[in-house]
């Protein structure tokens, strides 16, 4: 059966869900990469951004099958088991890189090939522990170690962002892998996430969810790193070939995130022999004015998290979108509570469930406002989802579970100041302390 036919048959049966790689999610379902933006408002600077990127510049699939200049086309990745030996990596930008070792196999593919003088991205996915390792300007050394310009490690089950102003293996400080168009997704009929793309010149600024900029241009008519775009809904994709149509639909629904300086409207993907380069070349029928910049600020629930708000805005709210649990032997973080609040409606029935056996939530159903108690024991990270179908609302709490190193608490004794005098009556005594193993 031709691959294109397979794609068409599958289009109607693929359920809406977060992208996965092996048994790992590619970030939680409520991660910004996995959020649709087709109903979000335009960014006020949309027209200006399109004009500076290139209003007549064509679209381009920067990925495909076969070789170009002797190397696969696109940004490759490799999946490894948790037993993959880790090797040392030294970084040029060590202060903004996650230190090694990284589980890089000797045959890890390098973007552009082993002799590339380009970005030389190397992407490794530990499919046992659901950890993504990414490097920029990566070079293998004869002793098995690697050198790289920068490197970043991402927990694929969590919504963590890198520290603000830190780069990653990408200029925007974001992960690369979740923004790649992958053939397995297209073969399955749908890309359910935003794609990565480049622009020739960007602003010396970044916006959520980006963490880093790479420009000296202060003109606000240029787009900042992290700016999201989408293909206009009015753009008719019906006449395009199956592979291209899946990519175009993703660009309309999920859009694309500006993550690096490069050629105009170059959309990133992973190389795969299944791609039909002739079909992908149809993206050149698009031009810059077919895109528009999106204001996705309403999705943000925390500037330091990639989690997005969900459900009908304002109807169902959770006091927290992420919780951390630690365990060490038999010790585990105490249960934590998350109030569920319905606004503007009353008597709404809801259910709460966990997607991991080691994470429990209580109660699992109720009516109206409530307080959930979430517990975790040693195991995988996951999420608790609260759904209220009657009002088409849902919310999710990311539950991060990690082993903790036993140790003494730490913290600070802040007030009163030392050697305070003349004190009378009530004296506020304050500070903070770690609660890692409370």
């Amino acid at each position, binding site marked *: 059966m031709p691959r294109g036919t397979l794609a068409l048959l599958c289009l109607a049966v693929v359920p809406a869900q977060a992208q996965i790689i092996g048994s790992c999610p590619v970030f939680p379902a409520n991660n910004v990469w996995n959020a649709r933006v087709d109903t979000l408002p335009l960014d006020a600077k949309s027209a200006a951004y399109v004009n500076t990127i290139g209003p007549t510049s064509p679209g381009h699939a920067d990925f495909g099958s076969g070789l170009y200049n002797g190397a696969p086309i696109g940004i490759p990745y490799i999946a490894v088991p948790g037993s993959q030996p880790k090797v040392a990596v030294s970084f040029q930008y060590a202060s903004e890189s996650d230190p090694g070792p990284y589980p890089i196999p000797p045959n890890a593919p390098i973007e552009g090939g082993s002799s590339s003088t380009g970005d030389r991205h190397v992407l490794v996915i530990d499919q046992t522990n659901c950890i993504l390792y990414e490097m920029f300007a990566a070079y293998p050394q004869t002793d098995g170690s690697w050198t790289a310009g920068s490197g970043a490690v991402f927990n694929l089950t969590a919504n*963590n962002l890198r520290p603000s102003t830190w780069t990653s293996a990408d200029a925007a400080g974001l992960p690369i892998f979740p923004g790649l168009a992958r053939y397995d997704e297209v073969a399955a009929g749908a890309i359910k996430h935003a794609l990565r793309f480049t622009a020739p010149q960007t602003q010396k600024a970044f916006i959520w969810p980006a963490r880093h900029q790479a420009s000296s241009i202060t003109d606000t008519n240029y787009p900042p790193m992290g700016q999201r775009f989408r293909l206009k809904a009015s753009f008719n994709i019906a006449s395009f070939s199956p592979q291209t149509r899946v990519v175009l639909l993703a660009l309309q629904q999920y859009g694309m995130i500006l993550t690096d300086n490069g050629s105009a409207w170059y959309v990133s993907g992973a190389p795969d022999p299944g791609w039909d380069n002739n079909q992908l070349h149809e993206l050149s029928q698009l031009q810059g004015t077919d895109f528009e910049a999106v204001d996705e600020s309403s999705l943000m629930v925390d500037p*330091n998290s990639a989690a997005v708000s969900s459900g009908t805005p304002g109807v169902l*709210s959770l*006091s*927290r979108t992420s*919780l*951390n*649990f*630690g365990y*060490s032997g038999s*010790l585990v*973080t*105490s249960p*934590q509570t998350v*109030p569920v*609040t319905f606004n503007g409606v009353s008597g709404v029935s809801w259910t709460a469930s966990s997607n991991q056996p080691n994470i429990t939530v209580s109660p699992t159903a109720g009516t109206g*406002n409530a*307080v959930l108690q979430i517990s975790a024991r040693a195991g995988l990270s996951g999420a608790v989802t609260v759904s209220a179908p009657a009002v088409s609302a849902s919310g999710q709490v990311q539950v*991060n579970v*990690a082993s*903790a190193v*036993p*140790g*003494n*608490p*730490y*913290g*600070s*004794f802040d*007030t*009163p*100041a*030392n*050697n*305070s*005098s*003349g*004190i*009378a*009556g*009530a*004296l*506020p*005594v*304050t*500070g*903070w*302390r*770690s*609660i*890692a*193993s*409370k």
Partner: protein
Amino acid sequence: MGNEPTASNGLVFIGNATFVDDSRSDVQATYPNAPLNYRGGWGYMLLTNLLPNSGGAAGPGNGSFNLHAIAVNKSGGTFDLGTRTVTVDNAQASKPFGTIDTPAQGATISGNAYVNFGWALTQSGYNIPVDGSTITVMVDGVAVGHPTYNQYRSDIATFFPGLANSNGAVGFFYLDTTTLANSVHTISWVVYDNQGRGDGIGSRYFTVEN
């Protein structure tokens, strides 16, 4: 407090601090992956009048004290977060004093008639008007009203005898939490006596969850 025994580490137990959710966003941002990182901030309202004498002017609540904050975790690990030396001089105090009893530090409250209790006294020779007009309840730094004052409480009357308001130090205020967002807030009382000498008392965080 003054009757607490001295522990094996040579320190005298005063009380347990309370963790306050979302009171320290700086700590939360610094330790984004730490469990319960939103609950790193702690607080304890130390009523210095109840301290024993420690080399100061005559009477309890006077002298020099070394305050320790001892953190203990679930596995039994302990750490002294630091020492603060303070000189307490209630004998020379010139301002009203007291505290808020409810909501407790970090408490979660709800409803349209939550009762905010507190008490206030001032120094000998002065008084706090019994109609409560010089006591202002502040929520998030905004005045929301005056409490009903001049209520008797035996423990305060016993511990602070002889002051003008000793037999009516308690006040209460009905707080309509439905007018507040479901989130963390602050509350305090600002108390003035009949000579215009004032001070803030009882400042603390609390959470509204309706």
